[in-house]
Every structure is written in structure tokens, then in C-alpha cells.
């Protein structure tokens, strides 16, 4: 008997200009009815040649550029950009500077996960959380504006050997207030989203990645931890001062979109935990106390010591990156952000290879899309957490 409903495969172009494509991603999807039989991502629409630019910029010149990689998480980019030459030159970072860095990075992790949560929920059809997350993200940006002078990108705050400026008066109290405010807000998100039957049916069992696949595809961050691998570079590499704090690596075993959602929600709580501990135990305490003590005790005060500075070595603009190479990495909100740097005793790096987390996470998309329904494309893409500025660089 002849099947009358048989159809020819249909090619559907999605993007690059569509809000659900998270920037300028283009997907060429081949459909058999509603089923996806093939998908080809096309990227590069936002390619600016950041690696090439890095090859003729000194570090001080390059730091302002880097928050344009992943423009939702500029601090991570700045951190890895200064870490690469800093570790190559063996420059020590004062404890206080390291704590300030961790505070900024954890605030950025929250901001990153918030900016993932809103669009992801919008992708699966719920617009409300989008407005909620902007409410909270504004507060993080207010904190950044106070400390760095800039809100979303171009914070230009990290420097080799520390950070550009100490925290302003009262900043630590304000950050405490944010932590107190934010914890109940995460509960509010959870009440709104987690057990919502529409959301659950939309994301459960969708885009499943097994543990072996996740490792083989080089996934990182919540994508890897959502597939049952307990791998967090903050734990693995013990960089900055993450060892000083009590926190847990969050992971899930299901490997589907829901697992990745749960990991990210819990990571926001862990970040607040780290933030609170860092704010309480930052060497030197709040800025006003530190400055008052310095003034009261004069130039010989112990508070002028190395550990209490916001920047250890003030590098000159002519700082030469020593000869040598290595690969440094950190755990950004999206996963592993790495830089492979080769120095040859010049002010410019010889090679500055950026390994962005979402570039590597996005590779698997066509393979988990196959066999899914066309309506699941945006849900799965949303759960990967991509920012095209970072994918294309």
C-alpha cells in the first residue's frame, strides 16, 4: 500500500537574525515533517578576529577588548586575559586582589546564569522570567558600575598583578545586601519555574547527552556537569582563592535540558555562598576600615602589606611577556574558558589562542537535534547557553 502522507525533506533556515538564535547564529535545518533529520549551524557572523587583534596589543591595551567576547560575562574574559601573561611571568597576586577578583567573578557567574535563564524560559514560551532576571541583573550592574565605572561590558577592571582599583566605600555592604536580597529571589524563580508542568514537559528528556558523549565532545561547565561529570575547574585547578571557601560542585546525571537548568539554578546559590564568605573574610576588610587603619598607623602600618593591596605589581605599559607558552583556563559561567599563550619576550603575545566555552559546547548541537521535533530546536539551543560574541570572537 502506498503511504499517501509521505513528504519530501524540507530545508528550513533559522536565523541569523532572530531573537531565539541568541545573537547571530544561523541553523540550516532539514526537516521530515516535524522531525529534524539534519542541522548545520553556520557561525562567524560576529567574527572580529580577536586572536589576531591580540597579537598586536599589549595586555593593557587588550583588556578593554575582551569583554566583547562573551558580552554577558565580561569579567571572566578579563580574568583569563590577565591570567595568561601573569602566570607566564610568575607575578604574584595579593590576597585582597584575589578576593576582589573572586567576588567579581562570582557576581558575573550569577549575571551570566540570569541572562541564560531569562532567554531560555522565553525560548520555551514563558516571557515573565525575562523581566524578573533583568530586575536582579540591574543590581549586579549597579555594583559593577560603582567598582569599575562600567555596567555591562568594558569594565576594564582586571590588571596583571591584581585589579585596577580598590572597592569603593560601602561597596561590601551593598554587595551583602545584594546577597540577602538574591537568595529569596532564586527561591521565587524555583517556585515559578521548576515544577511548572508546562516547563517540565517542554524540557524533560529533551537534548539528552550521555556522560561519555559529553566528555568526548569536549563540553564543559553546566553542560558537562548536567551529564553527570563532577568537573569544575574552580575545584580542579584551585585557582585564585576558591580553596578558602566552603562550597559544592553542583551536578546532575540526567543530561537533558532540565538537568542543565537545575545545575545552573543551584550554581547561583553556590555563588552567593562563595560571595558571602569572600565578603566576610576579605583581607583588610571593607575599604573604609582598611584606609582608616592605614591612616591611623602611618606608613609602617601592617595594612600597607602586600596581602592587603588591590594590586601587587603595577606593570608598566611596556611590560614584556616572557618567552614561553602555556594553556591557562578558568571556569566561566558557560564552562571552560582557556587561553593558550605563547610569549617571546615582547610586549605583544606571539599567539593568543582563545578557547571559549560556548564555542565548544555548541558543536554538539546538530548531533543532539537529530530525531527531535522542530519545536525543540530553540529549547535545546537555549539550554546550551551560547553568546555569539564568544562563539565567533
Amino acid at each position: 500500500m502506498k503511504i499517501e502522507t509521505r513528504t519530501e525533506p524540507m530545508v528550513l533556515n533559522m536565523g541569523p537574525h532572530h531573537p531565539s538564535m541568541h545573537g547571530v547564529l544561523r541553523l540550516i535545518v532539514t526537516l521530515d515533517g516535524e522531525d529534524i533529520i539534519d542541522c548545520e549551524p553556520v557561525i562567524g557572523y560576529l567574527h572580529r578576529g580577536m586572536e589576531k587583534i591580540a597579537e598586536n596589543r599589549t595586555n593593557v591595551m587588550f583588556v578593554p577588548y575582551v569583554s566583547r567576547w562573551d558580552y554577558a560575562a565580561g569579567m571572566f574574559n578579563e580574568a583569563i586575559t590577565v591570567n595568561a601573561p601573569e602566570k607566564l611571568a610568575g607575578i604574584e597576586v595579593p590576597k585582597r586582589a584575589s578576593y576582589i577578583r573572586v567576588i567579581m567573578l562570582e557576581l558575573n557567574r550569577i549575571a551570566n546564569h540570569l541572562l541564560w535563564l531569562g532567554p531560555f524560559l522565553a525560548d520555551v514560551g514563558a516571557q515573565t522570567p525575562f523581566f524578573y532576571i533583568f530586575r536582579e541583573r540591574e543590581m549586579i550592574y549597579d555594583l559593577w558600575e560603582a567598582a569599575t565605572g562600567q555596567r555591562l561590558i568594558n569594565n576594564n577592571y582586571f590588571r596583571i598583578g591584581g585589579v585596577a582599583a580598590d572597592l569603593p566605600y560601602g561597596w561590601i555592604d551593598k554587595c551583602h545586601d545584594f546577597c540577602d536580597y538574591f537568595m529569596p529571589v532564586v527561591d521565587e524563580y524555583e517556585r515559578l519555574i521548576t515544577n511548572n508542568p508546562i516547563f517540565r514537559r517542554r524540557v524533560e528528556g529533551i537534548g539528552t547527552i550521555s556522560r561519555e558523549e559529553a566528555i568526548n565532545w569536549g563540553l564543559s561547565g553546566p553542560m558537562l556537569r548536567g551529564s553527570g561529570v563532577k568537573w569544575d575547574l574552580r575545584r580542579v585547578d584551585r585557582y585564585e582563592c576558591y580553596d578558602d571557601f566552603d562550597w559544592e560542585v553542583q551536578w546532575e546525571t540526567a543530561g537533558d535540558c532540565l538537568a542543565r537548568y537545575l545545575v545552573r539554578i543551584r550554581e547561583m546559590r553556590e555563588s552567593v555562598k562563595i560571595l558571602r564568605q569572600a565578603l566576610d573574610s576579605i583581607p583588610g576588610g571593607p575599604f573604609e576600615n582598611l584606609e582608616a587603619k592605614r591612616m591611623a598607623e602611618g606608613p609602617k602600618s601592617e595594612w600597607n602589606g602586600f596581602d592587603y593591596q588591590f594590586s601587587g605589581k603595577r606593570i608598566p605599559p611596556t611590560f614584556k611577556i616572557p618567552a614561553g607558552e602555556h594553556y591557562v583556563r578558568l571556569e566561566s559561567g558557560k564552562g571552560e574558558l582557556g587561553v593558550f599563550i605563547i610569549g617571546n619576550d615582547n610586549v605583544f603575545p606571539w599567539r593568543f589562542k582563545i578557547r571559549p566555552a560556548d564555542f565548544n559546547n555548541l558543536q554538539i548541537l546538530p548531533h543532539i537535534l537529530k530525531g527531535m521535533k522542530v519545536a525543540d530546536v530553540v529549547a535545546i539551543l537555549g539550554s546550551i547557553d551560547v553568546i555569539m560574541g564568544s562563539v565567533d570572537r
Partner: protein
Amino acid sequence: MAEDTKNNENTPETEENKPVPAGPVASWLSENGFAGVALEPDNLGVEVIKLEPEVLIPIATALYAYGFNYLQCQGGYDAGPGKELVSFYHLVKVGDDITQPEEVRLKVFLPRDNPKLPSVYWIWKAADWQERETYDMYGIEYEGHPNLKRLLMPEDWKGWPMRKDYISPDFYEIQDAY
């Protein structure tokens, strides 16, 4: 697979001027009859092993079986004017609750005029876009890659932008002049 790689061992031995003590991974490789030359470890103490393109796949397979399940970073660089192009592979052992993971970096030095080597896509899928990007930027051809074409640059772009001898066009439209 180990047997057919043994005959390559004589070629790299000529570099006697700088003997580098082999790290654990390099010595494991030589114990099992794989040819690789240990280079100076990098700044963080990660082992660097230089390979010939012909033995990349057998050695990569062996290292995969040895536990290097994660291709952390693949990329290329230009060793300098008139020198080789390099394709490097940063491997790491990923697992639960690991704090000091074993790492190794493989490097394959390729001639500028004909940079070709086999793709490791079939061992680590993570090489998919990373090898495409290296092809895009350096013109290194990864044989056996399922979809080797330009990734970030426009499809009709001429030249390999990240090579040190690349001359940037004055303006974008010069591409149309070809």
C-alpha cells in the same frame, strides 16, 4: 596498531643537541613503542610531545586508551617567518573529583607549503570545530575531517589570516576583486 609505528623512531633522533628528560607520558609512549620526541615542558610543567604527522593517529588512539578522554584545546600557531606551522592538542584526563589532572600537549610540526595531517575527530569529537577553525585561520588540512571548510571567515575568503605572513586587505571589498 602499535606495531606499524615503530619504523618512524629513527628520524627524530637526530635532534641530539637538546636532550629533554621524558615525562611520564612520553616514557609510557616509548615503553610501548610509540615514537614521540619530548620537548621542553611548558611554563606550568605540562609535558609537550612532538609527533610526526604519520604517527599522530596511533599515538592519539593510544593516549585515548591510556585515559586522556578529553581534548581540552586544539589549535594552531605559526612558528615564525619561513618556519613550520604547528597543530597542537591539549589533552587532559577528565573524571569526578579530580584535583590534579594529568595533562599533555601534543604538537605536530608541518611544512608551510603543504600542511596536511590526519584529523583526530574520530577519537575526540571535540576536534570538530576546533580543527575547522585551525584550517580556517592557518590553512592546515585535516584529512578525514567530516566537514572541513571555513568556519569563522566568509566562505570565499582568500588566504589564511592568522599566518604571520598574511597581508590584510586594505578594505573588505578587495575580496571581491579576485
